[in-house]
């Protein structure tokens, strides 16, 4: 067959038209929605963390949809209940990726569930958004951390404490990796601020009797107590500390107190005066936050769990991811992750946030807050704390293959 120029142009035009028609018909085939997954512990022993985070995430998706969706598509939130059971996490992650074809999944709050979920999502190229405060060290091209690493809370809190409370610190923590990492920071900052660690103790998570701990602390006579005690059994410490009359004598600072709603569960006599550091607390008095709480309560009602520094990650995560999707103009994992190199910026209820392209972690304000009568009030705002890059060891622009969790060397 002899191919004339006219014929060629004609068939090429027709081909383009067909291709264009097909391209247009694609969304119709896939529907006008795109799926996003929420994988939180909604039942079981960790529901106190999972439920508020999921509520915030659901609300974020509602808001994105109310504003017209993303790239012209509505977002369909698929909810999976991790049931506080590690086995469920890889199963649901796989279901989300293969069956429900989610373009992003957020959740897996505990370190153990995160580590179970992360490799599955990596394999199927589904971006993983990690919304909680944690020990730090997540440095993977397929993952983004939208909350604070422990250093982002602990360093400002300890600097503030050494300047305002005194030079001698006693550190008491639960015995697993996050509190031990924070212990490393505790000692590094003590040294840097000319302070001294007069004691360091780690307790297994099921310990409920802290009488020896309390006499040890009393013997060491610290100016303040740095606590990283975690979970229900460890709340006993605060009860016994208050019962021994210590709450009014030695101030407590913590990067986890309040994260498990300790301030609501303990009585004011057991918790008044405790100082914490988070990116966010519900009482935060800024126009952005007031407006956020108003919209949130219009959606879920006023009788919702307290929104603490962990739960807010459920809202911030989808919002930051949505910014990256808009920048990329695509839901594709590689496009979205490439867009992160431009340092995505977004202002949320907790203020300005910058998702750093090198570490996939987030620069944000950190607030030193104090509880009285179950209400937190602001002591000081530490503006725009950048994520720690592990002395240059975390650089996903140069080394995108890293998937290892990094440990601080300070």
């Amino acid at each position: 067959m002899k191919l004339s120029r006219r014929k060629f142009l004609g068939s090429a035009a027709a081909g383009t038209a067909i291709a264009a028609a097909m391209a247009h018909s694609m969304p119709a085939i896939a529907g006008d929605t795109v799926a996003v997954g929420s994988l939180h512990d909604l039942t079981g022993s960790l529901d106190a963390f999972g439920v508020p985070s999921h509520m915030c995430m659901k609300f974020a998706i509602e808001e994105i949809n109310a504003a017209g969706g993303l790239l012209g598509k509505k977002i369909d939130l698929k909810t999976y209940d991790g049931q506080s059971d590690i086995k469920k996490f890889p199963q649901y992650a796989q279901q989300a990726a293969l069956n429900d074809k989610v373009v992003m999944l957020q959740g897996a709050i505990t370190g153990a569930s995160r580590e179970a979920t992360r490799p599955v999502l990596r394999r199927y190229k589904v971006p993983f958004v990690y919304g909680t405060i944690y020990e730090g060290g997540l440095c993977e091209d397929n993952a983004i951390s939208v909350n604070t690493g422990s250093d982002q809370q602990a360093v400002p809190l300890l600097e503030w404490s050494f300047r305002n409370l005194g030079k001698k610190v006693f550190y008491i923590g639960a015995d697993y990796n996050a509190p031990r990492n924070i212990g490393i920071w505790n000692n590094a900052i003590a040294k840097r601020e000319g302070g001294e660690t007069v004691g360091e103790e780690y307790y297994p998570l099921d310990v409920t009797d802290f009488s020896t701990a309390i006499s040890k602390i009393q013997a060491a006579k610290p100016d303040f107590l740095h606590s990283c005690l975690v979970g229900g059994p460890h709340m006993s410490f605060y009860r016994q500390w208050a019962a021994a009359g210590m709450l009014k004598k030695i101030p407590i600072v913590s990067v986890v107190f309040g994260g498990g709603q300790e301030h609501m569960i303990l009585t004011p006599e057991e918790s008044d005066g405790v100082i914490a550091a988070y990116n966010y607390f519900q009482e935060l008095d800024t126009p952005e936050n007031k407006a956020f709480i108003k919209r949130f309560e219009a959606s879920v009602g006023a009788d919702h769990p307290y929104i603490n520094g962990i739960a807010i990650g459920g809202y911030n995560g989808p919002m930051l991811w949505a910014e990256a999707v808009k920048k990329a103009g695509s839901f594709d994992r590689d496009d979205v992750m490439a867009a992160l190199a431009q340092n995505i910026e977004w202002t949320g209820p907790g203020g300005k946030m910058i998702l750093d392209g090198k570490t996939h972690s987030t620069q944000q304000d950190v607030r030193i807050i104090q509880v009285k009568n179950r209400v937190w009030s602001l002591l000081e705002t530490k503006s725009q704390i950048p994520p720690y890059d592990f002395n240059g060891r975390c650089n996903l622009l140069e080394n995108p293959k890293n998937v290892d969790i990094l440990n601080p060397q300070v």
Partner: protein
Amino acid sequence: MDQTIVLLIAIANNIALLTLISLGLAIIFGMMRVINFAHGEFIMLGGYATVLSANHGINLWIAMLVVAPLTVGLIGFVVERLIIRPLYGQIITTMLATWGLSIFLIGAVTTIFGNTVLGVSAPLGNITIGVYSVSIYQLVLIAITAALVGACLFVLNRTRWGLIARGTVQNPTMASAIGIDPTRVYAMTFMAGAALSGLAGGLLAPLSGVIPQMGAAYIARAFVTVISGGSAMVIGTLSAAGILGPTVAILSYAATPVIGEAALLLLAIGLLRVLPRGISGLWQGGR
């Protein structure tokens, strides 16, 4: 000087805690040879009974000392009737059944009261010893435990009821031949053991708060104490607590709490290797 006093209090506190959480188990195991895996949950239920009734306006002392043992005693009555009695004499089956009961109780409490920590503040304030201050409630707890041990010994050794109970345990056939109904004695014993566990939970609630899974924190230590104590229920448990408690306290104080907890297990293993019948195997006969 004040440091020594505080350390002594910590030691006494550890002995009292071990004794308190083990007494109910010791009575049930020692008298009936029933390995009650739901023992931790009996403690948990006592804690809930205390916290809930105190939060509903009942005086905290009544909630701890009356409501908690009464509630769990009644639950013990029902449990004995439905689960323990039909399986009596089958140690393994009873163990499995009470394990099932333990899972059921955790689930039921989680469903009804939610999976969150509840609590009441410890009463009585604190006293100052030199640079230290100690919760008065902690001292009262030690005193109450001592009184409980005394009461158990008195009931078992000096009352008619104790005589009947001990006689029935030694020889149920003989006991029934002289007109004592062993079934009833077992029911009463199980109830008493459950009530003691409930009381322990009630007394611990202001210190530890309550959560459906809290039993797990106690059951291992309770079993270790009871088994190390051997067949003399009360004195055996007390002497096991008297050896294990100070070891944990001193090692937690001098080294780390992890070493303290590990030492508890190592010491118990060592004790049982040397004294396979428990500490009370040394003298036997006493209760």
